[in-house]
């Protein structure tokens, strides 16, 4: 499945599906020009590279939206050994953009990582690719071999004197490894259990060395920043929200898939691009930034634009840009029950509030969904959530609590109905019929 549609395609411009991932095709669409310019043309210093990325206001595409240039500037200059890591763990339910990046444009990630490696002074880098897309891990290794053979990786890159090599590391089924310090533990060959912070990875990261970690899409955007210029990249989006972004649209739309739009594009436009609501049914709510972000009800989301600030103002998070669209056939209690199971299942078990708390949350929501809820359960959920959020080693605890807070804020009456009437507001058959195969698939979309 290639990118389905875009407004002003920049990141995805020139993509040719499975036929276009290789080095020759990437170079034909301007690939590695930014690296050449930096290392041998304009001969930018690492500080100049960081300044340009700061100017672009490229914010991290992995979830937290942290400014990328600023993150790079945290790396200590004098340290002799530093590392760079790319986060392609992509396990946040609803997110599937990095998969397409690795499938159709792996060299943009490689080029972005080499530029970043130069900027922060790293000796080597690793791309952590989740195990579920193993075929793309193999493709990435093939792309690395191409880049190495062409002199973009290794010793004395393009004759510039800069040495940097890059490797692929695969995950094997653990959502928590998307959390950056768990990811580092995992590369070190251990269980993926997050570390205490501080120290942050920029001080103590992989093998104890200063390390910069960015998301796949963040790295893929870096060559673009230099091709366009930082200012032009920023202006593609809106102030404080530079550039375009991939949105993974899933759920009850006619055309689920990835869409590239400038930050600041109205949600209504994105929904229209995704083919509108499936079978013309009514929009009920949208989870705008991956399963951890609080749900936004239909009337509110229709007033939002897709950027970090607008979604935050509506009480949620742009997160990874995973837009989960739900129509009127969804029972919010059942939807939340499924998500809560996920966090319970994926808690790494290291700290008590998360390990025990996610289990409690799931059990309470499960009993509400199954007609055994008690009137005090809703307040109990919020109280319990308050004792988890902010009290765990990593943000998985918060991620488990935020969807619950969002649902109870906007759809509390549905939960109350469940407790009082011991059944769903939306009949089971309607739920099931509403969540079947969609039109794009039935029309035989390419697999």
């Amino acid at each position, binding site marked *: 499945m290639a990118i389905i549609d875009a407004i002003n395609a920049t990141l995805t411009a020139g993509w040719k599906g499975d036929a276009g991932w290789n080095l020759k095709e990437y170079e034909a669409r301007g690939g590695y020009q930014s690296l050449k310019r930096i290392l041998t043309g304009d001969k930018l210093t690492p500080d100049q590279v960081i300044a340009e990325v700061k100017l672009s206001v490229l914010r991290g595409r992995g979830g937290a939206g942290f400014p990328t240039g600023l993150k790079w500037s945290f790396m200590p200059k004098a340290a002799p050994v530093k590392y760079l890591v790319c986060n392609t763990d992509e396990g946040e339910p609803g997110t599937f953009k990095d998969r397409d990046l690795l499938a159709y444009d792996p060299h943009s990630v490689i080029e972005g990582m080499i530029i970043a490696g130069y900027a922060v002074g790293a000796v080597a880098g690793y791309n952590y690719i989740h195990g*579920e*897309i193993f075929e793309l891990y193999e493709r990435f290794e093939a792309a690395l071999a191409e880049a190495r053979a062409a002199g973009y990786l290794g010793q004395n890159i393009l004759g510039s004197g800069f040495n940097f090599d890059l490797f692929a590391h695969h995950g094997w*089924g653990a959502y928590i490894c998307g959390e950056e310090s768990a990811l580092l533990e995992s590369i070190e*060959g*251990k*269980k993926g259990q997050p570390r205490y912070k501080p120290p942050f990875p920029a001080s103590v990261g992989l093998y104890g060395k200063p390390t910069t970690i960015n998301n796949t899409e963040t790295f893929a955007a870096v060559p673009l920043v230099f091709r366009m210029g930082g200012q032009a990249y920023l202006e593609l989006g809106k102030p404080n929200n530079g550039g375009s972004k991939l949105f993974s649209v*899933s759920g009850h739309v006619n055309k689920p898939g990835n869409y590239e739009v400038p930050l600041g594009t109205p949600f209504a436009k994105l929904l229209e691009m995704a083919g509108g609501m499936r079978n013309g049914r009514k929009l009920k709510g949208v989870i705008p930034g991956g399963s951890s972000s609080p749900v936004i009800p239909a009337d509110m989301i229709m007033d939002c634009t897709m950027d970090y600030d607008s979604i935050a103002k509506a009480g949620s998070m742009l997160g990874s840009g995973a837009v989960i669209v739900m129509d009127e056939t969804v029972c919010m209690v059942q939807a939340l029950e499924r998500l809560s199971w996920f966090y319970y*299942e994926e808690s790494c078990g290291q700290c008590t509030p998360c390990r025990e708390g996610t289990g409690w949350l799931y059990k309470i929501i499960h009993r509400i969904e199954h007609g055994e809820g008690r009137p005090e359960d809703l307040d109990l959920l919020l109280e319990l959530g308050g004792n988890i959020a902010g009290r765990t080693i990593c943000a998985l605890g918060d991620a488990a609590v935020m969807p619950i807070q969002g649902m109870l804020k906007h759809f509390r009456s549905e939960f109350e109905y469940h407790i009082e009437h011991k059944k769903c507001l939306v009949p089971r058959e309607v739920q099931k019929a509403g969540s079947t195969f969609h039109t794009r698939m039935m029309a035989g979309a390419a697999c």
Partner: protein
Amino acid sequence: MLSQESLSRIDREIAKYPADQKQSACMAALRIAQEEKGWLAKEAIEDVAAVLEMAPMAVYEVATFYNMYDLHPVGTYKLTVCTNLPCQLSGGVHAADYLKQKLGIDFNQTTADGKFTLKEGECMGACGDAPVVIVNNVRLKSFMTPEAIDKLLAECK
């Protein structure tokens, strides 16, 4: 013992990491061992530990932490279907139900002939292609309508 081929594949993984960080190849080595043996018995885990000069317990910790390592025998074809919310909204649960009915087994069971094992998976980062099924950990299949499932099962000889 692991085959010579597996050992040399593991060596290629070790080469990716600094010389004093062999342990980093643990995840790949377990994956390679599982591919060769079908599942990870205690001996396979100990073999990996020996190759990487790790304590067997440290390797066992890794093998038990990550979901895609099989610590018990599985069928020739392990099918993992995603039922998380985004997939559920586009037929993920229907696909799971269809697989259960066709194979006559529930999640975490293996057919009597030892051919298929069915697993419930969490988000595979492919929600736009829902329903999705992963075959033997490494082949992700998109848009698994009943027809596509029938075709897949027929291909599994």
